[in-house]
């Protein structure tokens, strides 16, 4: 069944581009259908539905059972892809570009699904590359100077990341004779003191840190997020960097290397990202750039949780659960914030906050959902972000990492500060005269905003259920 997640996008891609353009009109519905299929699969995950499909399963050698982490990611991919599509539908009117972007979205979808599903280091690299290539094209798809600039910077940094990762893969391959997760994990166990393997873990990890945009590997991220078209920045910030950087880091730590080997690195990098990202977000004029730095900061929290998980013990388990929970929450609220920014861009033609103001009464749903997301990201109860941060801080505290726990609390104050600045500059105050006629964004965007805001509230309120049914089962997962 899972193989379909890789096969169907590719099949769709080929069908859409049949000579004559017979099915070209179905591009957007096709991507939407695949995204919904993915959400359903992530939630229900049927086992052995059809024997015929099981043979397809064999074909791609995806036999390892799917853990909760992968399911959380599949769910996130589906949700964000759907959101991005609706924004695309609302913001891009030219038929040709819409069709092209939808095709590249399919490639991106396939790449991300592959990253989540494979259990082979080299395949992981190949699918990361698929995702990245799709991202480069998508970022530049507007044809604007800034889009090209952002995409080029992303490409250079991503190529450097590729080199680092592949060097790591090659050296692990040297010892394991294979690139399969389990074989590499066994080789790492048996040759624990080897210099080359230590270097390999370091370079592979650093490659993923570049892809995930952690400080000091983050240079490309704000430029790419800021310059991407509205629908694409939703996708990039929502899942692409999380899947290609953070999820792969989780996978590397949980399934291959063992988190304890590099947990101090993760803690340091996570804390640095948290602080630097939040500080940089304080003084930005571009809403999208601010949100990008906020992503750096929040991803820092996730990596901090992962580092805490490497400390082992019950605190480590709680830290891992908190990190995964925050990963999901951040996906939702950062997607929502970027959709808000898309709504504002649709009505004001810019994402520069210095020309906005007083839009709260004119765009009630956008402003309300934005406030909910902002409060959630700042960790205000009872919204979803509060719980994941609370669990994270508790885990850090239990693990004896008092300094990191205090830092996490301190950064949440900074987060609150810059998020309130956004609310004030965009939605309150005096409205500029040329924006007096601004109205609420179009239907698709409003729908996404409302739905995601409900998810934030729902996850926050139903926290115990989410915790027990989705996150804690992970304990058995590693």
């Amino acid at each position, binding site marked *: 069944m899972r193989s379909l997640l890789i096969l169907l996008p590719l099949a769709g891609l080929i069908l859409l581009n049949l000579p004559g353009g017979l099915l070209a009109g179905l591009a957007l519905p096709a991507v939407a259908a695949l995204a919904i299929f993915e959400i359903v699969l992530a939630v229900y995950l049927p086992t052995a539905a059809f024997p015929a499909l099981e043979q397809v399963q064999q074909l791609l*050698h995806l036999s390892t059972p799917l853990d909760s982490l992968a399911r959380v990611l599949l769910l996130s991919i589906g949700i964000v892809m759907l959101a991005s599509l609706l924004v695309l539908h609302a913001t891009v009117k030219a038929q040709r570009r819409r069709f*092209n972007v939808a095709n590249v979205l399919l490639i991106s979808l396939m790449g991300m699904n592959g990253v989540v599903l494979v259990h082979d280091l080299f395949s992981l690299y190949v699918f990361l*590359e*698929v995702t990245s*290539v799709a991202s480069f094209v998508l970022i530049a798809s507007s*044809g604007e100077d800034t889009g090209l600039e952002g995409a080029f910077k992303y490409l250079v940094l991503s190529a450097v990341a590729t080199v680092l990762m592949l060097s790591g893969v090659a050296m692990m391959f040297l010892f394991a004779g294979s690139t399969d997760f389990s074989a590499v994990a066994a080789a790492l166990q048996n040759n624990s*003191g080897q*210099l080359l393997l230590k270097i390999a873990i370091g370079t592979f990890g650093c490659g993923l840190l570049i892809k995930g945009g952690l400080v000091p590997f983050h240079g490309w991220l704000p430029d790419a997020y800021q310059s991407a078209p509205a629908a694409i920045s939703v996708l990039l910030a929502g899942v692409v960097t999380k899947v290609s950087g953070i999820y792969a880091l989780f996978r590397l730590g949980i399934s291959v290397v063992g988190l304890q080997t590099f947990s101090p690195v993760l803690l340091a990098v996570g804390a640095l990202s948290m602080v630097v990202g939040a500080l940089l977000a304080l003084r930005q004029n571009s809403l999208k750039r601010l949100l990008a730095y906020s992503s750096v900061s929040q991803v820092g929290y996730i990596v901090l949780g992962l580092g805490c998980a490497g400390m082992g013990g019950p605190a480590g388990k709680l830290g891992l659960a908190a990190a995964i929970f925050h990963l999901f929450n951040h996906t939702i609220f950062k997607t929502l914030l970027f959709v808000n920014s898309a709504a504002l861009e649709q009505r004001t033609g810019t994402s520069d906050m210095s020309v906005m103001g007083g839009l709260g009464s004119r765009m009630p749903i956008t402003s309300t959902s934005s406030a909910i997301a902002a409060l959630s990201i700042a960790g205000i109860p009872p919204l979803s972000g509060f719980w994941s941060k609370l669990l994270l801080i508790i885990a850090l505290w239990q693990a004896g990492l008092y300094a990191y726990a205090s830092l996490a609390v301190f950064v949440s104050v900074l987060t609150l500060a810059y998020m309130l600045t956004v609310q004030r500059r965009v939605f309150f105050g005096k409205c500029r005269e040329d924006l007096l006629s601004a109205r609420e964004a179009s239907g698709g965007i409003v729908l996404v905003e409302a739905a995601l805001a409900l998810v934030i509230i729902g996850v926050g309120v139903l926290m115990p259920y989410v915790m027990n049914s989705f996150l804690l089962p992970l304990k058995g997962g590693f």
Partner: protein
Amino acid sequence: MNALDVVLVAALVVSATMTVMTARLLRAVIGLAITSAILTMIMFRLAAPIAGVFELSVCAGLIPAIFISAIGLTRRLAAEELPARQQERLRRFWPLPVLLVLAIIVLTQWPLPIGLPDSQGPEPVTDLSTLLWNARPADLLAQVALLLGGAFAVVMLVKNVGREHE
């Protein structure tokens, strides 16, 4: 240590250095092709003939062709810039050979305590086509997607520029 190996490695490093340091872009691209050709020889030496053939045809043939066409499209600018930038390039690149020599000295005089694994027994599957087609199908699908992605990049970024607002 085999003399041929030393020559091959030296040729690789020297040609790579020339590639990045040469003044004209076209020569740099040709240098890249030569580097690829040397890499192909190394691959033959390391008993990887099929990968070597790929390297030769794709990296010494296709990729330089792509670069050359790109340079052709921007030639006017490239030619204009040349004299003005030459001085600057020299200033930027002269440390590279020095650094390389230093690196060679350091790495040969103080070798890292690198250990290699013991022999791991015979390879389970030695047939290349079986490996490529049956053992790693996911990689193949990904390659298809990647090439399609490249095609869309050309369509969207090169072919369609200026026709957006039709």
